[in-house]
């Protein structure tokens, strides 16, 4: 049997093994590559920078643990940026698990790194509500018709942060972290466009190509997948070097990502060589 035949009948588990090694080896050796923010990511960073102190940012956490490796680094970087700039952050979720994802960021990032920030004054978690785009449609006109209390059971009217927030239009930016439907597309359709509210998206790589058409006219900017998160981390560290000491998760994960992509490209090239060689054989 020739090498070509061997490759054609290659057990898919061998490919899994190569991908596994491509991911594990750079992780063990802590390999990192420098990241440079692209305009679509810089646009979000610059917009957050341009917001005056005290502005209120809504962060809908529309994802679950299955996509956390991509979206948690974005949410972490954005949360650090907003709180460093003394912006107020309000989180909510169109996905049931999103409430827990937001809580994780508060527990692991906000509470240890920003102990001076007070819950209810500087940040709030409104939690999950069912209804998807119907919910967005309703809170565009009146937040309190759906949100009467936060996740801790505190009435919304008793939260100082929420005093001036009556409708979605009272938010200065909606920074959505989205893993699918309902997500960024629905926020653009049902809040951004009709309410003329600036929307930015941190999305999984899978849905990033679907969101590109909304940039720049209907969306401030977008972070697509882990690469987008790494670029935002790079922009944040450049402007606020104090975060260099903190973990830059996405930047660390981009090296194994690049090595895995390289391995996949090699397999794609091998696959094409086999295809064209076989086609040539059949023609002869």
């Amino acid at each position: 049997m020739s090498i070509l035949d061997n490759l054609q009948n290659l057990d898919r588990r061998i490919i899994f093994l190569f991908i596994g090694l491509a991911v594990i080896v750079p992780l063990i050796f802590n390999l990192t590559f420098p990241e440079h923010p692209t305009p679509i990511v810089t646009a979000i960073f610059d917009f957050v920078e341009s917001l005056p102190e005290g502005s209120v940012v809504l962060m809908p956490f529309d994802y679950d643990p299955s996509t956390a490796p991509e979206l948690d680094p974005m949410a972490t970087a954005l949360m650090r940026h907003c709180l460093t700039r003394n912006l107020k952050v309000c989180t909510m979720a169109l996905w049931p698990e999103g409430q827990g994802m937001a809580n994780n960021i508060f527990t692991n990032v906000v509470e240890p790194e920003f102990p001076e920030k007070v819950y209810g004054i500087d940040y709030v978690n409104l939690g999950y509500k069912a209804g998807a785009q119907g919910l967005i449609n309703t809170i565009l006109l009146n937040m309190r018709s759906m949100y009467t209390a936060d996740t801790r059971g505190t009435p919304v009217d008793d939260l100082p942060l929420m005093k001036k927030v009556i409708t979605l239009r009272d938010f200065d930016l909606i920074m959505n972290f989205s893993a699918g439907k309902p997500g960024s597309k629905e926020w653009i359709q049902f809040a951004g466009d009709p309410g003329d509210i600036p929307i930015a998206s941190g999305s999984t790589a899978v849905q990033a190509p679907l969101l590109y058409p909304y940039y720049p006219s209907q969306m401030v900017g977008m972070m697509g997948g882990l690469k987008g998160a790494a670029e935002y981390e790079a922009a944040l560290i450049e402007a606020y070097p104090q975060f260099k000491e903190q973990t830059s998760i996405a930047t660390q994960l981009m090296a194994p990502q690049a090595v895995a992509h390289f391995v996949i490209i090699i397999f794609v090239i091998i696959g094409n060589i086999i295809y064209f060689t076989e086609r040539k054989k059949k023609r002869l």
Partner: protein
Amino acid sequence: MNLSPLELTLNGILTLMILSFLYKDNPFYKFAEHLFVGVSAAYWMVQGVWQTLMPNLIARITPGLVSSFMPEAADRAPEYHFIIPALFGLLLLTRLLPKGNWLSRWALAFVVGYAAGTNFVRYLQSDFVAQIQSTMLPLLVLRDSGGIDIGQSFSHIVLIVGVFSGLVYFFFSKEHKGVTGSISRVGIWILMITFGASFGYTVMARISLLLGRMQVLMRWIEQIFGIF
């Protein structure tokens, strides 16, 4: 995420159980899969009851009933018109009845009507009108300082040619021959490049998820065995 050693061990073992499917289907994989489905269903149900049904329905119809654990409902007057959506919700459950399950169609008709109506308007505005507006771009972009911005102009030309040729490819009222055929061939190329970009992004997404799992496994090994 900060996890205790027990949580990390559970996380690591379940990850290995799921990854074992890469070798072949096995009982460990099936157990982890069923556990995930069960836990997810329960979590969704609990969230639905406590985050939506209680505050947005029960607390509005009978605030006194829930005021002991929902203080925000204490001072509120009953809003009896919420009985209508409650009835519609109950009608949906009639699907489970052997007789009278046709009643669920009324509630379903309301849901479909509402969704179709709101989605139609929003899609028309955001995905049709706004997208056409976004494609109306100048082919030559001039710099403020004078001269042509070549990069931006090239982007605009690619965008306009891509949209036009893509639309021609999906125009089936005329046979794709001659000029139409040539333009539609450009459209196919544009579509192929788009699919390639989507595939590339999908690969990146899947590798990212694998990286997340590998990180968990490494942290587990590090904490339990002190390696890495």
